[in-house]
């Protein structure tokens, strides 16, 4: 069962076909939300069908908060949390291998990663009571007491540096780096982890970051699986039990603001010579923030422009009509800041200029004219008709719940999602794209075109 009330969930969808034209209010995915005394905000979808649970804990400690000289700090700190836990509360030290074996023996997993915005810890476990209790206890240790072993970090740093050097031999890497730099300028979204920034990171920096940011009062905890609200509440309490709790009633430390992405002043075209079987092309500019009121028109519009698989305008013009590329796409990456609009393709080096020209024309025409009525209808048919495919597993539900929690969206966001799509007009999309995209001021990066 995906939802707490399977019957209600199914009833909501039996009329899915009717949703094309009807904005019916229906009881959808029941997300339960509460706050613990620690300040942790909990979001739960109880889904009893499979004896398993997924937990994702998000903190505002993603790489946008990295010091520029230590770009990559949040990422490597996250990775190093799996390299061992220290002795505490009567529990002995576990080195990286003992910790990994303990997880394998439970048939469970726990790990951390950092994106631009979020530092995320993820637990997956079976829900048999004794197993889940042990997995929760081990996760609590790893969350609160990572040892950041000083002998392991130099090794991991060497491995990372070697993989960076390897990645830098690929045209796709060079294109991505040049693009991020040109689009984001000095903004943290454009920070690049390099051998030099890695050399400036020590375990003391990781420890300091961990102590400063991994605080229950900043946590958004998302849970999907075979647990009740009471079990979920206890699970969260246990997960945070080993973190220092602030003084009762004390305010959660405020986080400093991060600057916004600056708009581009003029078009930039970067050509990087490279001998490869394909040229790699990226075209784009800063996009929009997740909180932008244009979110839905931009979502639908980009489906039409370059997001909709085999049926987008870009795929039709670049791949289907001209056979220029296996893959051509566009996407927005809205976050706490204006993540980029990105158009990407790869093509034989002697065709790069033609592919760039065709792609630019497609974007410019779309921004100037917006979609046709038929295109808009086709997009709505797909997005509304296929809504259930966005939430038909625990894993997908977890992504959606975490999105709602992180972006402070209403708890009934998913229940009204199809209505939001249904009301978008051609004019909405045209206006939103005109506000967000300036084809005459975009960045173009071309790596490996035939001169």
């Amino acid at each position, binding site marked *: 069962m995906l939802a707490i009330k399977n019957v209600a969930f199914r009833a909501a969808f039996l009329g899915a076909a009717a949703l094309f034209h009807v904005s019916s209010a229906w009881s959808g995915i029941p997300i339960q939300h509460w706050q613990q005394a620690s300040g942790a905000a909990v979001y739960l979808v109880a889904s009893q069908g499979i*004896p398993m649970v997924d937990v994702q804990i998000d903190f505002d400690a993603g790489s946008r908060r990295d010091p520029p000289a230590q770009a990559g700090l949040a990422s490597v700190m996250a990775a190093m949390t799996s390299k061992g836990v220290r002795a505490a509360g009567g529990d002995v030290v576990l080195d990286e*291998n003992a910790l990994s074996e303990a997880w394998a023996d*439970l048939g469970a997993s726990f790990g951390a990663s950092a994106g631009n915005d979020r530092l995320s810890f993820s637990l997956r476990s079976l829900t048999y*009571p004794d197993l889940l209790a042990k997995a929760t206890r081990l996760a609590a240790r790893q969350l609160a007491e990572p040892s950041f072993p000083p002998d392991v970090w130099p090794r991991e740093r060497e491995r990372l540096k070697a993989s960076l050097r390897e990645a830098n031999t690929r045209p796709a890497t060079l294109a991505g780096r040049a693009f991020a730099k040109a689009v984001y300028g000095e903004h943290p979204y454009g920070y690049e982890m390099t051998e030099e920034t890695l050399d400036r990171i020590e375990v003391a920096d990781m420890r300091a970051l961990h102590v400063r940011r991994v605080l229950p009062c900043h946590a958004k905890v998302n849970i999907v699986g075979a647990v009740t609200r009471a079990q979920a509440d206890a699970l969260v309490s246990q997960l945070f039990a080993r973190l220092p709790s602030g003084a009762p009633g004390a305010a959660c430390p405020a986080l400093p603001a991060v600057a916004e992405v600056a708009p581009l002043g003029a078009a930039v075209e970067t050509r990087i010579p490279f001998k490869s079987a394909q040229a790699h092309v990226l075209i784009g500019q800063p996009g929009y923030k997740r909180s932008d009121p244009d979110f839905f028109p931009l979502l639908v519009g980009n489906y039409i422009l370059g997001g909709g698989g085999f049926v987008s305008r870009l795929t039709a013009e670049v791949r289907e009509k001209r056979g220029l590329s296996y893959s051509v796409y566009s996407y927005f990456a809205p976050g706490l800041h204006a993540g980029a609009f990105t158009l990407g393709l790869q093509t034989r080096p002697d065709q790069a200029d033609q592919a760039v020209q065709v792609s630019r024309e497609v974007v410019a025409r779309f921004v100037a004219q917006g979609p046709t009525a038929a295109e808009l209808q086709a997009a709505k048919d797909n997005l509304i008709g296929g809504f259930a495919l966005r939430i*038909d*597993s625990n*894993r997908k539900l977890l992504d959606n719940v975490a999105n709602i929690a992180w972006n402070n969206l209403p708890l009934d966001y998913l229940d009204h999602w199809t209505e939001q799509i249904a009301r978008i007009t051609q004019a909405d999309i045209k206006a939103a794209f005109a506000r967000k995209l300036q084809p005459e001021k975009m960045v173009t990066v071309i790596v490996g075109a035939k001169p």
Partner: protein
Amino acid sequence: MKRLILCLFPLLGLLASPGASAQTPPRAEQFTLSNGMTLIVKPDRRAPTAVHMLWVRVGAMDEVDGTSGVAHVLEHMMFKGTPSLKPGEFSRRVAALGGRENAFTSLDYTGYYQQIPAARLEDVMKLEADRFARNQWSDEEFRKELEVVKEERRLRTDDNPRAQLYEALHAATFVESSYRRPVVGWMSDLEAMTPADARAFYRRWYTPANAAVVVAGDVDVAQVRQWAQRHYGRIAAHAVPPRKPRTEPAQAGLRRLQYKAPAEQAYVALAFRVPGLQSLQVAVPGDEDALALTVLSAVLDGYSGARLDRALTQGPDRVADSVGASNGLLGRGPQLFVLDGVPAKGKTPTQVEAALREQVARVAREGVSEAELQRVKTQWVASEVYKLDSVFNQARELGSYWAQGLPLDASERLIERLRAVTTEQVKSVAAKYFGDDQLTVGVLLPQPLDRSRPPRPQPTGARH
């Protein structure tokens, strides 16, 4: 699935009583339509969606020299129309139904799928049956799509040094077996491919007795069966052509190859010829070894900090930045056990090769511990539960087992057989299959990145 979940208790040795009330998911059912086509249905009522797949038991291994890649080119052309659908119209129809779709080609099989709201299942069955029976397109469409496929090859292989190494490694490992050719095809064969090549391959292999429809999700089995008979069951059939065995002869001596490509890191892969699993229903010599080899690969590399990781990538004098072990186990052709690694800074592929082989030799000498064996089995049993979360993956697994000729309950049988493997068997296969004579070693020799060097010479076949 109930049976498997119950198996957890003694295995994990952790559970006082069965707590969570796991419902028993409905089992998959299999039917044969009147024209010989197979239908497999797996109900999963958690959400009102379904996945529909059409599997054809034909892949790159069924190609012949000169037209390598044609199975995959045909997969692309299947989106290019029928007498009643213009090029691209198939995808537009699926999108309008709210669906997502794609297709895949491997050495052993070709598959097409749509994920759709369950209420749209019959619509995609009609569409898929139409193109399975009546795929049709112009030479001009073929010419354009062939360029797309060449771009796919450039993307996946030609600019990817390790992919190129594996292409060369398979070409050196197999002599008679068509596993020696890349799925995407050699560029020269793509340059020379004609519309007639793809049409002939389609007529030869796309026949009901060589295909299976797999449906999983919020569906009623009897209803799906009725729709399948109506839309697929009437497709005219011809016999599946005989397949030449092209049995790979025994390898009698070590083979080595080097591949030079612009890269920073070296890389080494050791491919050992091993038995693949032949049956889950009857006893076949070699099958116990195939299963024990899979347990061996998990003991070596099944979790971080497993034997290879610990011995090669840790400590002050570590030889590797990363390592791996995998056993083929299942496939229509000959199987390989592959050890691989990326040398650490200052270390050589030769050192990595020796260290990898030493870890296998150690198992052959000393065996593995009961704790290691239990650990990898625990992970498999847990993953049997986790995999229930994805309807798509369930359908994909059912389809791939069918393509290998395995029974409907292959997954459960496989887990049971793996759980029965003993430490003694693991030790025994480590001693048996890892000598020099059935080994092919491929080494990637990194070349400096010279941005002004002339491009790699390309085949000069005519462009269409």
